[in-house]
C-alpha cells in the first residue's frame, strides 16, 4: 500500500497549479467547517458542559420574576438536595452602555459547592468570603479590562438602585480571578447580601436557585417535589436540569444551528463538485498512462486504488491545513465576538467529524474517475495517443 505513496505524490505534482487550486478550495471548505462549528457551539451553548447533577429552579412565569428568599431554605430542606445557591441578575454595565457584563449576585458560602468545577486559589476565596463588597471575576473578563486583584471597579446596574441615594453604581472590589472548567470565564460573581441590603426594591427576594442533587438519577423526582412544594402558592416554580435550561435558552436564539448546518452543507456540496471535477480531468488526461500501467501488469484494483488514494490524499491534506487554520483563527474570532457572547474556541469533536468528512468527500469525488479507470480497456487507452 505505502509503496505507491511516491507515485501518488508525483501525480499531485504533475500540474502544480491545478493541485494547488483544488487544495486551496478544500482548505477553505474545512476552514469554514471548523469556524462554523465553533460558532454553532458558541451560539447554541454547550449543554454537554452543564453539570449533570445540577438543577435550576426559576419562577414559573419567567426567569425575570423573583422568588421569595425563603424558597432557598425550603429547597435546601428537600430530601436528596445536596446544596443550593441563590442567584440574582444584576445587569452590569462597565464604563459605557456597550459593555454589558454578566454580573450575578450569589449566595457566597455555597457557590463553590454548587459549581465545583470552578477553581480559585484558597487565599482569594477567603478574601472573597470575608468582604461583602468583594467580587470574583472570570479570567477572560479580567484580561479584557485589565483588572487586577485589589482593584475596585465601579460597576453600574441597569436594574438595581441604592435605596438611600438612588445611585445605580455599586463599587466592587476584585478579590479573585477564577477559572471555570465549563468555559464560563466572562462572568462576575458577588455577594447577595451586598445587593439585597441596599437595593431600593426587591429586598428579601432571589432571582433563581441552582442546586446539586446527591443522586442524579433522581433529578426528575426532586424537580417534581420542589415544584409540588410551591404549587398553588402566589409564586409557583419550574425546576429543570441545568442541561435542559441551557438547551431551552439556546432554542430561543432561533434556528441558528439549522441555518449554520445548511450553510456548511452548501459549502461542502460545492467543494465536492470542485474536487470531483478536477479529479475527473486529471484522470482523463492520463488514460494512455493508465493503459501502460495495466499493460505492465497493474491490476484493475490497484489502478482504482491509486485514483482513490490520490483523491483521499488531496482531501486529507486540505482538511489538516484547513482545520489547523480554523483552530488558529477561532482565537481571533473569539476576540472579535467577545463583546457579543463568549466563544470557547473550536470544539475537539470537529476533528473527528472532519476525518469522517475527508473519507466521504474523497470517496465521492473519486467515484466517477475510479469507475472510468477500472473499466478502461488497454487497447482503448493505448489507441488514444
Amino acid at each position, binding site marked *: 500500500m505505502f509503496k505507491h505513496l511516491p507515485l501518488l505524490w508525483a501525480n499531485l505534482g504533475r500540474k502544480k497549479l491545478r493541485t494547488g487550486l483544488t487544495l486551496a478550495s478544500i482548505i477553505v471548505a474545512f476552514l469554514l467547517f471548523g469556524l462554523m462549528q465553533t460558532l454553532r457551539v458558541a451560539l447554541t451553548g454547550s449543554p454537554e458542559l452543564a453539570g449533570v447533577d445540577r438543577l435550576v429552579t426559576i419562577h414559573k412565569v419567567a426567569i425575570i420574576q423573583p422568588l421569595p428568599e425563603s424558597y432557598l431554605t425550603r429547597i435546601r430542606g428537600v430530601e436528596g438536595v445536596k446544596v443550593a445557591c441563590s442567584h440574582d441578575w444584576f445587569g452590569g454595565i462597565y464604563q459605557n452602555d456597550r459593555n454589558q457584563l454578566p454580573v450575578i449576585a450569589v449566595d457566597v458560602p455555597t457557590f463553590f459547592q454548587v459549581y465545583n468545577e470552578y477553581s480559585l486559589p484558597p487565599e482569594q476565596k477567603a478574601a472573597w468570603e470575608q468582604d461583602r463588597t468583594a467580587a470574583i471575576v472570570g479570567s477572560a473578563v479580567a484580561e479584557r479590562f485589565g483588572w487586577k486583584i485589589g482593584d475596585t471597579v465601579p460597576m453600574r446596574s441597569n436594574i438595581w438602585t441604592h435605596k438611600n441615594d438612588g445611585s445605580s453604581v455599586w463599587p466592587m472590589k476584585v478579590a479573585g480571578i477564577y477559572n471555570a472548567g465549563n468555559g464560563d470565564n466572562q462572568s462576575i460573581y458577588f455577594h447577595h447580601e451586598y445587593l439585597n441590603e441596599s437595593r431600593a426594591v426587591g429586598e428579601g427576594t432571589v432571582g433563581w436557585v441552582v442546586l446539586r442533587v446527591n443522586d442524579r438519577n433522581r433529578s426528575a423526582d426532586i424537580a417534581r417535589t420542589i415544584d409540588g412544594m410551591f404549587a398553588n402558592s402566589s409564586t409557583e416554580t419550574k425546576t429543570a436540569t441545568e442541561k435542559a435550561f441551557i438547551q431551552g435558552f439556546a432554542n430561543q436564539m432561533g434556528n441558528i444551528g439549522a441555518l449554520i448546518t445548511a450553510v456548511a452543507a452548501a459549502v461542502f456540496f460545492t467543494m465536492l463538485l470542485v474536487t470531483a471535477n*478536477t479529479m475527473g480531468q486529471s484522470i482523463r488526461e492520463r488514460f494512455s498512462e493508465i493503459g501502460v500501467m495495466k499493460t505492465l501488469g497493474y491490476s484493475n484494483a490497484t489502478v482504482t486504488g491509486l485514483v482513490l488514494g490520490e483523491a483521499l490524499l488531496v482531501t486529507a491534506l486540505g482538511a489538516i491545513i484547513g482545520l489547523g487554520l480554523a483552530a488558529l483563527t477561532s482565537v481571533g474570532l473569539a476576540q472579535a465576538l467577545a463583546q457579543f457572547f463568549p466563544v470557547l474556541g473550536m470544539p475537539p469533536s470537529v476533528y473527528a467529524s472532519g476525518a469522517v468528512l475527508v473519507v466521504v468527500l474523497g470517496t465521492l469525488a473519486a467515484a466517477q474517475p475510479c469507475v472510468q479507470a477500472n473499466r478502461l480497456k488497454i487497447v482503448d487507452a493505448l489507441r488514444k495517443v
Partner: protein
Amino acid sequence: MAGNSVTQVSAITSMNLRNVSQRATSSVVALVGIAGVVTVLIGVLSIAAGFRAVLTLSGAQDVAIVLRSGATDEMGSGLSQPQTRIIADSKDIARDADGAIASPELYVVVDVPLKRTATPANVPLRGVGQQAQKLRQNFRIVEGRTFTPGTFEVIAGRGASLQFAGLSVGSKLRWGTTDWTVVGIFEDRGSVAESEVWTDATVLQGAYNRGNSYQSMRVKLTSPGAFQSFKDALTSDPRLNVRLFTERDYYEQQSRTLIALVSTIGTTIAVLMGLGAVFAALNTMYSAVSTRTREIATLRALGFGSAPVVVSVLAEALLIGLIGGVIGMAISYFTFNGLRASTMNFASFSQITFAFQVTPQVLMQGLTYALALGFIGGLLPSLRAARLPITTGLREL
C-alpha cells in the same frame, strides 16, 4: 485599427462562448459554486435587512421614551405614578380630546412555547395605558377586538401569534396565578410591537405585584423638534431622575448589537465562501485556457492581438459569474423573502420576531459579488493565455 480590434474581440468572444458546451462540466461547477455563495450572502444580508426594517419601522422621531436614569432598557427601568403624572403634564406633549397622548407602560416577559420547538421562550408582555394605540401610527386590530381595560384580557402582535403557540383569539393562557384570554391580534406594519403581547397596565400592575409603579413612559411630542426642550425640561426637574430617548434612537441602540453580530458573522462566511468559489472559477478557467492552448496560439499566429484573447476569456468568466449570480438571486429570493423567524434580543432579554427581507439593494450586492468573483477567476487565466509564446503554444499537444 480601433475598428479592427473591436471586430477581433467580438469574433473571438463569440467563438469562445459558442463552444462553452465543450467545457460544460467544469463551467457548471464554477457556476454552482458562485450561485451557492450568492445564495448564502443574500440570505445573511436579508436577515440584517429584516432586523433593521423591524427596528427602524418601530422608531418614530416624534415619540419619546422616558426611562429611569441609569436604565438601558425598559426591563430595568422604573417610574412611580406621580412621576408619570409630572411627565404627562409637559407642554411638549401632543394632546387630543382624551388628554395628553402618553402611555405609562410596564414591560415583563412571560414564558410562551415556541411553535417550532415547543420549548419556552421569553415573550414580552407589555402593560399599556389608554392612549398607547395612538403612539403607534399604523396600529390596527386585524382579528377579534382590543382588550377591555380592567380585565385579564390580552391582545397579541401578529409576529408573536405566528411564532409562539397558543396566541390565537379565544385561547386561554395561565401566567402565574392568573388566567388570561387572548381577545385580539394586532398589526403595526411589522414593528417591534408585533413581537409583543399587550394588556392593560393597571391589570398587569396587580397581577405582578407592582403596586402603582410603571417602568417606562412613551409620549407623543408636538413635533420632532420638541424633543430637546422636552428632554431639558425633564432632566432639570428635581422631582424626576430620568433618561430620555427618541423612539428611533432607542431602537437603533437596541438593534446595534444584533445587526453588528449578524453582519460580522455573515461577512466572514461570505468572504471565505467567495474565496472557495474563486478557486473553483480559477480552476475552470485555467483548464479552459489550457485545453485551448493550440487554438489560442493559432489565432495569435493568424494576427489576432493579445487583448482580444484576454477579453474573450474574461467574458466567459463574467458570463459564468452572471448566470451563477442570477441563479443565486432567484434561489434566495424564493427561499428567504418574507420568511418569518424569531430570535433573542439580548438588549431586552426577550424575543423579537422579524421577516427576512430580500431587498433590491441586497440582490444587487449579491450580483456584484458574483461578477467580482467571475472577474477574479478569469483575470489570471486570461493573462496567461495572452502571454503564452506562440511557438510553444503551437507545439503543445
